[in-house]
């Protein structure tokens, strides 16, 4: 009788231990929902707003317990909110469109809590802050836009090209720098001698318009092309050229519906870039699911994805980034 009781206790212990082992093998516990903290500072941009909706829908579909924090570009508000959520425990942190340079305190809190952070377009170079950051290939963006301008202008040698950037945005800063290098290497002249810098994305369109209008007032017919790091400012540059009667061409990045419409209209706006955000999100969700399943993290912490040049030929087939 005593032996039978011992056997029963031993069997129960084995079953309990094996159940515990199963639960500990993944990122979450079997009897608890998988907890994800998602945050973005860019929720007021069209793509940021899409990301919030898309991640919320995915979390619902996958049964995750999601805490979504929207920062409105206010890091003083967002960072403590994310840190507070980390303090309450989570299995994974998901950063959308927020550069790691702006979230140092979140990175520290996540590391202290041992929670891996997955990121989407949160910097343009590898960083230990993330288990992985998937973003678009900045060099690829530059290569295709520069090539489009070169084809349109019949080569870049001796052409006057204005490059418009915005330093606080790491992606725009990176690609504007790469574009300047590419144009110089191709023998083009950089209008104004350096990258023209827009101060605020909110007023990017009017700032770019003024930059182009003033430059053309001082240098009539002085531009062959304007390369701009994002569509909103590119639309301002395009308007500045049209108002001055210039036939110079403009390229942007983002593939907004307004930019696509301009490209289709056949004016100054030559091309833009589609960045495959839905596919990137799917890739990241895949990485998170793998972690949830067996606790394994991606083998690299930085991954870039190719983009698509949008010109008059394929513009009608592209889904605009503000209509995702």
């Amino acid at each position, binding site marked *: 009788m005593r032996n039978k009781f011992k056997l029963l206790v031993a069997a129960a212990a084995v079953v309990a231990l094996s159940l515990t082992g199963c639960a500990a093998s993944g990122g979450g516990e079997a009897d608890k929902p998988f907890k994800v903290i998602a945050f973005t500072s860019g*929720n*007021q*941009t*069209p793509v*940021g*707003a899409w990301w919030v909706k898309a991640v919320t829908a995915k979390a619902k579909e996958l049964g995750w317990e999601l805490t979504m924090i929207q920062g409105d570009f206010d890091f003083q508000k967002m960072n403590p909110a994310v840190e507070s959520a980390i303090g309450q425990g989570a299995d994974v942190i998901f950063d959308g469109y927020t550069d790691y340079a702006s979230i140092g305190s979140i990175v520290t809190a996540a590391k202290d809590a041992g929670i891996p952070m997955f990121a989407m377009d949160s910097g343009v170079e590898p960083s230990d802050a993330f288990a992985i950051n998937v973003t678009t290939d900045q060099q690829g963006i530059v290569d295709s836009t520069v090539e489009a301008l070169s084809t349109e202008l019949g080569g870049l040698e001796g052409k006057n090209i204005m490059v418009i950037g915005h330093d606080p945005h790491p992606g725009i800063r990176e690609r504007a720098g790469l574009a300047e290098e590419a144009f110089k290497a191709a023998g083009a002249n950089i209008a*104004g*001698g*350096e990258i*023209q*810098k*827009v*101060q*605020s994305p*909110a*007023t990017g*369109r*009017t*700032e770019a*318009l*003024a*930059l182009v*209008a*003033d*430059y053309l*007032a*001082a240098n*009539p017919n002085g531009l062959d092309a304007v390369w701009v790091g994002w569509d*909103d400012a590119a*639309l*301002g540059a395009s*308007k500045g050229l049209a*108002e001055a009667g210039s036939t110079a061409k403009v390229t942007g990045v983002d593939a*907004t*519906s*307004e930019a696509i*419409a301009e490209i289709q209209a056949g004016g100054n706006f030559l091309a833009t870039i589609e960045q495959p955000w839905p596919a990137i999100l799917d890739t990241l969700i895949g990485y998170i699911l793998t972690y949830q399943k067996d606790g394994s993290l991606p083998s690299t912490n930085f991954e870039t994805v190719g983009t698509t040049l949008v010109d008059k030929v394929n513009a009608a087939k592209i889904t605009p980034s*503000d209509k995702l």
Partner: protein
Amino acid sequence: MMKLNEVRVTGSSIGRFFLQGGTVLALIALIVFFFAMRPDIFLTFVNVKNIMYQVSILAVIAAAQTVVMVLGDFDLSVGATSSLAGAVAGAQMLGGVPVWIAISVALAVGLAVGLINGVLVAYLNLSAFVATLATMTSVVGMAFIVTEGTTLFNFPAEFNELGQGKLLNVPLPVYIAILVSIFVWALLRFTTIGRSWHAIGGNVEVSRLSGVKVRRARLLAFTVAGVIAALGGILLAARLGSASAVQGSDNTLLSVAAVFLGMTVIKSGMSNLGGTMVGVGIIGVMSNGLNILGVNAYVQQVVTGAIIILAVTLSGLKARER
């Protein structure tokens, strides 16, 4: 509440002359400087038209700010109100509403924001700074709701014509800015309400004792400012052919700067429309001239800030003279 206009300059001296005419002299000096640097470009018709086009919308919003600052108040919501008005007009038109109805609705939105500001300041005795800061925050949020965070575009051609059309090769917004300036100047100078605003700006208690209905006058000032700011936003949307929640957000700070710059122009040191337009001219000439000279945008921002500090300092010096 900050008093902006308790000043009167007496006597004469070279120092006082420079103090008195500093802003106008600064505008002349800037024009001479940029003309000397680029004589082939700066004062050409194309570039002067370019400058006027670039500052026309700021001029409208600065006129709105002038009305409020005559009373010794601020309106920090003018930029946000203009963005909301542009967004509302755009959303209406995209929904199939005729252009002039959409514009009327947008102006009504500006009127409503102005009324709220006026009630908060005049009847609930909130400081203008706090009240308009709060409404600015809410209004920006509303603009995001209206635009759904995107940029609205594809407006009817007749609407875009308002901001992009030309008469005698001069863009329409320039004419509209001139008309608004004349309207505000006449309102401030020749009407009873304009005189009441000046009186309140000079001394609230004396005005009250003199029979001026201070609360109603203050409510009206904010309401007028709201409508004019909305007009500025509609013009900006028409000029760009698009509307977003934050476009033109720099106009709040620049309009305050323009009014401060203009306060040094007249003898009394009060906010005045003519002075404000000189201030707008300085901002426009400086931005255009520095762009033409290829000066880095960040340096331009530093210079703009320095000019504002100089203007406020000049206003302070004049106030001390009294």
